[in-house]
């Protein structure tokens, strides 16, 4: 399965989600390729650190691609890996578009803030524009860096549910320091010790949605 973690807003936590999904998938013995298609190259830096900390045993393969090469190279490599996770930057770039032409799933994290929610319409338009080139593309929105309390989460979720282009999945990831602490050590949050049970649960639930539960069949509904 080819999973793109994308969107058009910076700072929504795309790389954190992409690297954590990659780590969990690889720990579960799936042959995974992580493609860093973000010019900030943070996923690549994370993998370098992870390889340093694990004596070269990051558990997955990581490469950098940009522009139309994301489509061509991913197509070539798709048969060699069980799963591919592509981390795109927070803009509507040729890299993200190229990824969307060959992806099965687009996961779009949204921070429960107005500036982030305001990009929902444009992300929906991008998905609608790319689907004729890739009819199997399904797009999902979820809350990331959610608040621990307050109304903002609920309000953001109600806006996300309104989108027709993206399906909202109720798998919120809280704004938790554990993600940053884990990343600073080249670890996924599920590997961090002492562990943050809430962070672990949240990312595991998202992971299960993406890889274990067939989102495509869910969104189609019964029959």
């Amino acid at each position, binding site marked *: 399965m080819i999973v793109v973690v994308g969107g058009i807003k910076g700072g929504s936590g795309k790389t954190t989600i992409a690297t954590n999904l990659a780590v969990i998938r690889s720990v579960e013995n799936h042959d995974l390729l992580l493609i860093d298609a973000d*010019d900030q190259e943070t996923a690549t830096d994370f993998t370098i650190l992870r390889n340093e900390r694990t004596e070269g045993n990051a558990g997955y393969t990581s490469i950098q691609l940009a*522009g139309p090469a994301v489509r061509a190279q991913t197509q070539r490599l798709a048969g060699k890996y069980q799963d591919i996770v592509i981390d795109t930057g927070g803009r509507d770039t*040729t890299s993200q578009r190229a990824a969307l032409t060959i992806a099965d799933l687009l996961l779009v994290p949204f921070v429960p803030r107005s500036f982030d929610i305001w990009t929902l319409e444009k992300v929906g338009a991008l998905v609608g*524009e790319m689907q*004729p*080139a890739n009819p199997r593309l399904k797009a999902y929105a979820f809350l990331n860096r959610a608040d621990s309390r307050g109304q903002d989460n609920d309000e953001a979720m109600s806006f996300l549910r309104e989108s027709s282009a993206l399906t909202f999945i109720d798998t919120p990831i809280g704004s938790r320091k554990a993600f940053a602490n884990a990343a600073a050590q080249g670890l996924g949050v599920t590997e961090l010790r002492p562990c943050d049970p809430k962070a672990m649960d949240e990312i595991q639930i998202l992971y299960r949605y993406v890889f274990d539960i067939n989102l495509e069949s869910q969104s189609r509904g019964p029959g």
Partner: protein
Amino acid sequence: MAIARKPNRKATSAVDVEALINRGGSPGGSGPREVQAKTTPILLRLPAGMGERLDAALKNRPVRLPRHTWILEAIHEKLTRESPPEE
């Protein structure tokens, strides 16, 4: 069989994938790739407390500097001090 059904055109053949992709903005790295290639990313792990000292030094400057620039300047100063340019 002399008469065959009219062949169906593939729906996706009408989609110019390349044009769709190129409607996106250029990834930041694709333009000045050569410039980027001349830099080497280094993960810097500071001893405990050094980051705070660095931030305090930055805070006390009359003109604010990004931390990255400050570190680059420090490296440049040390390189200049320890390897003076050849005459």
